[in-house]
């Protein structure tokens, strides 16, 4: 017995050659970098298993795809507006004068092996990048995962979103084709709409009168150097904070505010994530290989005179374009001989206000609720009805602006008059968020009531039983404790009470806060308590 027991340790004491090498290498690196502490910390980082927690990963992986394909493109792209005569393979543009940027983009598309695929991978990945950031933000918002201690990471994430849009727009403008040139012209117009300084700023950006000969080179620097550098740095901080703050998780058995239940990075999650990266890469390449995107050869080289019908920016700039399209006619003032272009300034102000609310929402909500606790449990959206309703209103506002950017296509495809489409969208921009707010809030409260009902009384089984005394009852099937836990564990809030400060006064700010808090928590469904469940079960069956 003892001999056989001694056998296994003796074999493990003599590691194989491969294991010895790994051990030596690990030791070599650790002695020089002390990296083992980091690996220990990172390797035990826990990821909860829920699909919505993978959306940020989608953004990260599509960003990697963008970096790889973008690097390929820089080998062949010439960021120059020097006029050249195109002599490449695409016949309908042969002999036409265009900028070197446009000509080199055409060469990438038609004369460089794999170039078109890479361009399309880059562009589709960019669209997916911003879209997945958007969805990721929505997930974080609706589950309340931005609450303390994650407010700073929300701000950094928001910065990443803005940077992604900047990257997208600068990249969209680089080929110097007709479509992107029209987009730049709109930017130029918006800049020139700024009172007094507008024209100067425009001249500064374009190096003279639009379009000038500098803008592509400048956008290129922003696109491949400045914005990516900030983006990568912010991404690093975002992920560092993610590790420090740990993941949130949905309520469930064994899950508390002080733990995270899931799989550690090493080895399970790393393997899963590695596979997931290749799936994302594969999906992007599949789309890029099958669906055309931004066919600049159809659009032709930029020339300030032609403007094409149906000119739109890429989807993530759509909301800004939509805001411009929705301005009613005649919004201009003339003051002392100066024209004040409110038709440009109002959208120019609405957008930062909207984005500002998004960026600072965690602080606004924290102030209203007065909640200074740490939150590591993700809320189910229904359990925070007002937050969910605000989110629904915000999404509607954004979506309406976004839809407005395609008002002309809505008109032609649904055979409507463009005036009525525009008026309809204008009305929707005001009414839509209000309706969305009311509907979302009612739906949330309704779902909470249903949850409460189910937690207390179980499901209706549809089985009718006649008791010996002649009474008919329907048998309710009770939830098991695991399922019930998901329904009953959420924090209950109450409106803040107004309290006088140390000097016995109640400030206006306090009153505002009380009103806001009342609005936030006035309509609420209290979670089912243990006593209620016990009473219910004692009383019945």
């Amino acid at each position, binding site marked *: 017995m003892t001999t056989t027991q001694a056998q296994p340790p003796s074999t493990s004491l003599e590691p194989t050659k491969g294991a010895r090498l790994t051990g030596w290498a690990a030791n070599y690196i650790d002695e020089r970098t002390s990296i083992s502490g980091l690996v220990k910390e990172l390797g035990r980082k826990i990821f909860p298993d829920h699909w919505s927690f993978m959306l940020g990963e989608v953004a990260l992986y599509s960003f990697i795809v963008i970096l790889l394909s973008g690097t390929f493109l820089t080998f062949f792209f010439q960021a120059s507006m020097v006029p050249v005569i195109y002599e490449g393979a695409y016949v309908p543009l042969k002999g036409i004068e265009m900028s070197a940027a446009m000509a080199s983009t055409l060469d990438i598309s038609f004369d460089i092996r794999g170039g*078109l695929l890479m361009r399309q991978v880059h562009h589709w990945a960019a669209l997916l990048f911003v879209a997945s950031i958007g969805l990721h933000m929505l997930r974080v918002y609706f589950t309340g995962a931005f609450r303390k201690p994650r407010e700073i990471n929300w701000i950094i994430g928001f910065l990443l979103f803005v940077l992604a849009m900047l990257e997208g727009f600068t990249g969209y403008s680089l080929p110097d084709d007709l479509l992107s040139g029209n987009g730049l012209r709109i930017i130029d117009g918006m800049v020139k709409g700024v009172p007094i300084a507008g024209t100067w700023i425009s001249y500064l950006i374009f190096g003279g009168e639009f379009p000038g000969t500098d803008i592509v080179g400048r956008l290129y620097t922003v696109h491949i150097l400045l914005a990516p550098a900030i983006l990568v740095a912010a991404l690093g901080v975002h992920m560092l904070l993610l590790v420090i703050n740990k993941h949130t998780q949905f309520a469930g058995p064994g899950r508390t505010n002080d733990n995270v239940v899931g799989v550690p990075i090493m080895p399970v999650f790393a393997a899963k994530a590695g596979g997931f990266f290749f799936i994302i890469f594969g999906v992007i390449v599949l789309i890029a290989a099958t669906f055309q995107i931004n066919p600049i050869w159809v659009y032709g080289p930029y*020339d300030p005179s032609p403007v094409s019908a*149906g000119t739109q920016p890429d989807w993530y700039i759509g909301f800004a374009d939509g805001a411009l399209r929705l301005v009613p006619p005649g919004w201009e003032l003339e003051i002392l001989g100066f024209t004040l272009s409110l038709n440009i300034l109002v959208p120019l102000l609405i957008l930062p206000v909207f984005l500002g609310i998004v960026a600072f929402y965690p602080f606004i909500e924290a102030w209203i609720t007065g909640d200074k606790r740490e939150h590591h449990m993700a809320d189910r959206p229904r359990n925070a009805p007002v937050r969910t309703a605000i989110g629904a209103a915000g999404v509607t506002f954004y979506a309406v602006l976004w839809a407005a950017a395609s008002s002309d296509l809505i008109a032609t495809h649904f055979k409507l008059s463009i005036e009525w489409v525009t008026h309809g969208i204008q009305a929707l921009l005001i009414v839509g968020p209000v309706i969305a707010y009311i509907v979302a809030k009612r739906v949330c409260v309704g779902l909470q009531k249903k949850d409460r009902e189910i937690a207390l009384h179980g499901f209706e089984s549809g089985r009718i039983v006649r008791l010996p005394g002649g009474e008919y009852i329907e048998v309710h099937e009770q939830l098991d404790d695991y399922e019930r836990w998901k329904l009953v564990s959420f924090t209950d809030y109450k409106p803040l009470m107004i309290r006088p400060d140390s000097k016995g006064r109640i400030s206006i700010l306090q009153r505002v806060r009380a009103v806001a808090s009342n609005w936030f928590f006035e309509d609420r469904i209290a979670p089912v308590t243990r006593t209620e469940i016990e009473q219910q079960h004692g009383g019945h069956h």
Partner: protein
Amino acid sequence: MTATDKKTRGIEPSMAKKSPSTARRERAAGRRHPLATVALLAVGLLGTGGAYALFTTSATAETSTAAQAVVEDGAKLFAANCATCHGMNLQGTTQAPSLIGVGAASVDFQVGTGRMPLAATGPQAEEKPPQFTEEQTLALAAFVASKGPGPGLPNEEYLNADGDAAVGAELFRINCAMCHNVAGAGGALTEGKFAPPLGGVDSKHVYEAMVTGPQNMPVFNDNNISPEDKANIITYLKVLEETPSVGGFGLGDLGPVSEGLFIWIFGLGAIVGITIWLTAKSN
């Protein structure tokens, strides 16, 4: 142009041919009787002149009777199908404009693409399968053209799509893309009107549309865009039509809108599906 102006376009060219330039032959006085020259001259002149006159008049009579028959056919078709709105004398009514002087090209475009007769009143005439045969359409065109001069049917040589596509593309971007979209995908105009997509439109109809400016389209006459350049534009449109979408499926050539919808619905949709699959509990 007035309604009483009955001078027809169809007959004009043949009338021009009828005025012959008589060749005069100078002959020096010869050995014969002085009057012989005069007599010979008289006989010669009478003979050639007479023969010429005979020949030409019979030819005109033949073509003009044929043309007349076509015009008469057209007149009947017009009376039966168009006159309710456009008036028996093409003078127009409150329902429809006057057709005097619109020319054969206009009729061939409107009727040949099925826009006329109108299926229903609306912001603009919609394209539909043509109601008349090619022959009937041409008869209608000849009839309308006979009531007042206007742009004629385009010359075949401009319709072969063998011009310079690059020049055509540039002209298209400058002159046409603001309504028809740079890829010819069409676009919205005011009050429910629209510029139709140009894919699959017959070369002849493209040319006729340019010279006549149907619906809301402006007229691009030969001084704006020369017939050769019109041929170049047609060439470009045909190249665009025949070139397969190089980068894969074109998503309707609608640009960023369809691309954005695609990535949200199918791209992100597929990926969310994958994430749900990856985190699903095994049964």
